Each structure stands twice: as structure tokens, then as C-alpha cells.
């Protein structure tokens, strides 16, 4: 090939998703791992192996129970608010939801503790509420954003209310709904370590105790799995957004 030859690579019509964010994350992870091993912290951290395994189970239970409850109940509540017979109350309710969202999660935990005492239950309830609100809001907003003409066409063709919800409203709102779920779950895994403060257990136990004892290895033994979990959950819901939303209304697949 001569020096001035230029190879033109024609891009496919649908551009491939960028792997850039994952490459950056992987680089950072490798750098941290190298630093940990080099400084000898890694060997110290391995001493907490048993605690980590036990607490991860607890942590996943907090996130899993509160998150799945929130997804189910949040979508149900959002759909319910979007129904015509709720139109009179929906906007007001969403205002309340917005206000409740602005309450810091730490305050929600404290409030739950004063209502339900300490332990896993108040922690799960507080996490559930914190996760619930963005899901309700986005479900409602997503369904409301479906153009009235589209619903009108569906009705005019003889779809019943159930068909319209399942085949027109939900598929067209799904992208926004899942964006809400993704944000909500980020809040959930981000808050879960604090559950330790009201006796909820989880990886927060290692983080907070490590801070108190000025024991970096202990702290990192809690912090690193927490961070990995957050990345994994975000990746999972990002994938859900990519694959579950119909291609015709999926901005990720029509770029």
C-alpha cells in the first residue's frame, strides 16, 4: 500500500454502542488493584474475607428486596396515577412524590428508625421509599408523554383500555420508565451502606467501622464490593433499557 492510500471504513447504519465507559472503568479498576497489591493492603483485606462474604449476602438482600418491591409497586402506582379516572388527583400526588423525593435518604432512614425501630425492616422500608419515588414519577411522566392522537387511534381501532395500556402506552413509555428504574436503583445501592447506621447490616458495617478504627483495609473491604455492585447494577439496567425497549422507540438503538 502506498503511503497516501487512505482506507475508508464505512460505518454501519446503526452505530455500535461505545465501549469507552467500560474501558475507562476497567483501567481505573486495574490501577486500583495494582496499587492495593503493591502497598500490601490487599493481604490485609483478605483477612476480612469471611466478613465480606457474610455482609455481601446481607447487603444484596437489602438491595434486592427493597429494589424489587420498589420496581413492582412503583410501576403499579405510576400506571394507576396515569389512568383517566385519576386525572384529578394525579398532578397533586406527583407534587407530593416530588417533595418526598427531595428529603435526603439519610433523613428517611432516621425517620424510619423512629417509626419502626432498628434492624433490617426499617432499613428495607426506607430504601423501598427512596427507590419507589423516581419510579412512580417516571412511569407517570412516560405514560403521560404518549401522544393523545396515538391513544385515540388505538381506541378508534377497537382496542380496549387493557390493550391500549399493554400494547401502546407501556411500550412507548418504557424507555422513560426504565430510566427512572435505573436512577432509582443507583440511589438504592448508593444508600444501602448507610442502612448499617440503623442496624440494617450490610457492607456499611465494614466501611463505617473501618473509618472509626482508622483501618483502611477494613474500610476498603467494604467499599470496593459496594462500588462494584453499583457498577454492576447500573450495567444491568442499562442493558435492560437497550434490549427491552422496542427498537422503534429506543433512542439507544436508533442513533
Amino acid at each position, binding site marked *: 500500500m502506498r503511503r497516501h492510500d487512505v482506507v475508508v471504513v464505512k460505518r454501519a447504519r446503526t452505530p455500535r454502542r461505545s465501549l469507552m465507559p467500560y474501558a475507562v472503568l476497567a483501567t481505573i479498576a486495574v490501577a486500583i488493584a495494582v496499587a492495593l497489591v503493591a502497598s500490601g493492603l490487599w493481604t490485609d483485606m483478605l483477612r476480612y474475607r469471611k466478613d465480606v462474604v457474610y455482609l455481601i449476602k446481607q447487603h444484596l438482600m437489602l438491595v434486592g428486596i427493597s429494589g424489587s418491591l420498589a420496581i413492582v409497586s412503583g410501576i403499579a402506582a405510576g400506571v394507576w396515577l396515569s389512568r383517566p379516572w385519576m386525572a384529578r388527583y394525579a398532578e397533586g400526588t406527583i407534587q407530593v412524590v416530588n417533595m418526598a423525593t427531595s428529603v435526603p435518604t439519610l433523613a428517611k432512614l432516621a425517620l424510619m428508625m423512629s417509626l419502626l425501630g432498628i434492624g433490617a425492616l426499617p432499613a428495607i422500608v426506607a430504601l423501598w421509599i427512596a427507590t419507589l419515588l423516581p419510579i412512580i414519577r417516571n412511569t407517570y411522566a412516560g405514560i403521560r408523554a404518549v401522544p393523545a392522537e396515538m391513544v*385515540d387511534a388505538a381506541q*378508534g*381501532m377497537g382496542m380496549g383500555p387493557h390493550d391500549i395500556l399493554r400494547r401502546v402506552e407501556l411500550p412507548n413509555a418504557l424507555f422513560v420508565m426504565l430510566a427512572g428504574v435505573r436512577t432509582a436503583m443507583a440511589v438504592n445501592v448508593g444508600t444501602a451502606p448507610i442502612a448499617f447506621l440503623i442496624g440494617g447490616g450490610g457492607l456499611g458495617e465494614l466501611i463505617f467501622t473501618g473509618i472509626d478504627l482508622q483501618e483502611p483495609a477494613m474500610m476498603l473491604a467494604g467499599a470496593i464490593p459496594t462500588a462494584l455492585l453499583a457498577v454492576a447494577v447500573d450495567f444491568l439496567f442499562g442493558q435492560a433499557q437497550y434490549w427491552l425497549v422496542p427498537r*422503534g*422507540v429506543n433512542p439507544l438503538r436508533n442513533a
Partner: protein
Amino acid sequence: MIRLEALTKTYRSAQGDVTAVDEISFEVEAGQTCVLLGPSGCGKTTTLRMINRLVVPTSGKVFIGGVDTDTMNPVALRRTIGYVIQQIGLFPNMTVGENIGVVPRLLGWSAERIRKRSQELLAMLALDPAQFYDRYPGELSGGQAQRVGVARALAADPPVLLMDEPFGALDPVNREVIQDEFLRMQQSLRKTVLFVSHDIDEAVKMADRIAIFQSGRLAQYAPPDAMLAQPANEFVASFVGSDRTLKRLRRIRVAEVMTAADGAVDTRELGVRPSDDLRRVAALFLETAAESLPCIDGDGHIVGRITRTAVASRLGAQLRK
């Protein structure tokens, strides 16, 4: 086929009751196209939507094929009526094939039958099934989307088609093309069509009968030629425009006006076809001083002549009635 009896819709508002549609009565025969025409806010769309009960009438009746639609389940009723609105009505989450298959699916057809029917309709509407069946509405042009809209309405072969400004969002060139295609299809399908439009030219082109609305009331119900020749009142006259005689030319065929050939033919003469409409004749009369034109069929045989006097008496005859 479709009969409206004193159909009325009254809305309550802060300023008191507003009558959007006021005792509309008319009948559309099977296989005919009726255009509901009028300025915006005249009640034509509300009238259309009362036929498939998207709007519940305050009083009055709609009969389809002799059956009072009050007695039918609205959802079941709508599945027997094709409904076309502007292109936004396609579901963007479904492919073209799935969009067309919506009503057949509601009716419980088999997947195989739905697929066959969708592809048949795409072909009928000049869209290559291999190319368009799996596309999404977002990947279509306005004209293509509107064709899919029509295909979707025809999917379950309903006897009645309701169309609410179906071609309103298209540019003039595309609109003419799709109107022509629709007219050609309608010649073999013979659906009973109610078509809302605010465009007099579209109405004259598409309609067997025009129902012209004036603030909720039916101002005139007549075939296009009769409406253009004899507007019922000032409002209709001003809506159809001062060039209404020119608009009539489109709907009159040479064959209706031509007289028997008188033998002598100058081969250099310009001719018209019996199937042409009078717009071509008028253009030739304006461009030349000819008193008459030969009418030539597809094989080049002279089958008659059309004279200025005959055209004038055809256009004037209705006025003198």
C-alpha cells in the same frame, strides 16, 4: 349504509352549553365516498367521531347497515370500521407489519393469515413488502407512513372507512399521488367512506357526495357538481370559491358531453380522450380558437366531438334548473 338521524353533540362549558354538532341528518349509500367539509371548528370531526362512538352523541342516532350503533358494544363496533388519522396515529413501537396487523390480531386471526394480509395490503399500496414489512414508522417518509395508515385501516376488510384529514400532513405533490391511488383502490374495493377535509379541491376530487358544515349545522348535502353549480347559501358559495365553475371541470368527463362525430377529421387537430375530464378541454379552448375538438379513443379512432356550446350548456344547465 350509514344513516345519521338528528345527530347532536352538546358540550358543557363555563359559558353554558355549546352545541358542536346540531341535528345532522344524512345518509351515505354503500360504496360511496362522502366528504365532510368545512372550516375548522365546524363539527365535521366530532360528527365523524360519533360514528365510531369515540364521541358519545348527546342525542340522535347512527345506523350502520340498518343497525342502531347504540345497541352495539363500542369496542366491537370499532373493529368493524377502518379508522385513519394523520400519520401520528401509527404506533412507533410496532413495525409496519405489526401496525397493519393490529385489528386482525384483536379479532384473533392466526399469525400466518395476518402476515399474508399485511403483505398483500402493502403491495396494494405500492410499498414493497420485502422492504417495508419490518421497518418502524420512524423510518418512513410522510407519504409512506400515510399509506401504511390506510393499509392498517383496511386490514380486516371493514365495510366502512372513517378518515380524518388523512392526507392533511402531506405536501401537495404526495397528496395528489396518494389521493389518486386511493381513488383507484376505491374503484375495486367499494368501501363506504366518510372522509373529513377542509380542502374544497380534495373534496371535489374524492367525494361522491359532499356534506358541508357551517358552525355545527349541515349547510348542504349534495354531489360535488351539484354543490358547485348551485350552492345552497352564501356560506357554501364563499367556501367553494368564486372559481367554482373551474372546479366542476375536474368532475365532468369528455364522454358525458361529447356528441357524435361528424365525419370530417383534420389529422392535425388536437384531440382529447373520452376519459379525460373537462380541465383538458377547457385548457385547449383557452389556448386555441377552436370551436370544437375531436375525441379520440385509445386505438386512435375518432369517437365523437366536443364543442364549446356543449360544454357551456353542460356547465350552465344546472344553473338554469
